[in-house]
């Protein structure tokens, strides 16, 4: 009887003992008022915990979560468009630089090695980019590009901060 400790009582309560042990504990509880009192107290705790009802968050909780999900979805779309715009701009710049390099390469090849048509065509493209990236315009173009990059970076950072704030509140 003395070797019935708390652990065994808990296992008895959860029906985790084998049939023989269950019977032994049952008899011991029936024959000892002290053990009976201990077991009934444990049983009452078990019943109490089973009957405790759960509590609820604020009444509009579900609505709030769904709104946050909506906001997140919308911001993800906006972010996608923003990135697309920036990448397009960068793509155009890369195309311009490639064109310029292409023109320089073509002009360095002797005219006899290329057909007139290709030569004329590449010359006209080359002239366009040459004027665009000419010594005069290059510094202006670089400054404008740097400015655009800085402004875009600032807005991107600001937008990320705003989105994060929306989620945390």
């Amino acid at each position, binding site marked *: 009887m003395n070797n019935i400790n708390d652990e065994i009582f808990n296992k008895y309560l959860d029906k985790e003992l084998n049939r023989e042990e269950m019977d032994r504990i049952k008899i011991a509880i029936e024959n000892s008022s002290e053990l009976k009192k*201990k077991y009934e107290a444990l049983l*009452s705790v*078990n019943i109490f*915990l089973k009957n405790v009802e759960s509590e*609820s*968050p604020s009444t509009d*909780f579900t609505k709030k979560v769904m709104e946050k*999900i909506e906001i997140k979805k919308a911001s993800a779309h906006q972010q996608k468009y923003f990135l697309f715009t920036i990448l397009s701009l960068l793509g155009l710049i890369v195309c311009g630089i490639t064109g310029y390099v292409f023109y320089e390469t073509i002009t360095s090849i002797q005219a006899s090695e290329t057909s007139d048509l290709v030569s004329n065509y590449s010359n006209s493209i080359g002239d366009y980019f040459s004027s665009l990236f000419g010594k005069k315009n290059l510094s202006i173009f670089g400054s404008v590009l740097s400015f655009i990059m800085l402004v875009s970076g600032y807005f991107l950072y600001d937008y990320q901060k705003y989105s994060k704030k929306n989620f945390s509140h």
Partner: protein
Amino acid sequence: MVMNNLSDVEIIESVKKGNQADYSVLIDRYKNKAFTMLKRMLKNEFDAEEVLMDCFLKAYNNIGTFKFESKFSTWFYRIVYNTALTKLSNSKRIIESEMSSIDDLHYLQSNYNADDFIKADNSLLIKKIVNELPPKNAAVVSMFYLEEMSTEEISDVLQISVANVKVILHRSRNLLRDIIEKRNLLQEII
């Protein structure tokens, strides 16, 4: 109404297909029990609601990675438990991990004197004691009794052994029993 009869798996599949609104059914299904568990762990209603919202957003964002290998409840409660622990550690509160003996819980007994039990509604007082259990004990008791999860499922959520879950559960019960016995509350709570 029809959505409420669907299983978690069916709702998740629907959400994955793009029916975002169906996620509200899952929220309604789990919010109360998860909120109770969080309130017991964080000891604060405001924090509990904030963390719960964060958990539902995390679950939504990662629902694409849910592979139906476990129950949604197990997966979701793991998010809830880990987010609560992060919140606790961020708040620099002491996280009570597994306790080496029942003595570690005796501070709870000493917090209540006989007069408290005479003045207040006994069941409310015991509820208050349950709410003051250390975070891990509170989580185990909540999942076992409120969510009716098995010790195996709880061990999966907490990433500890089944034996450890049982130890935590038994110690929590023993503590409450000791308090009830000391205050002669047996008749009142049955």
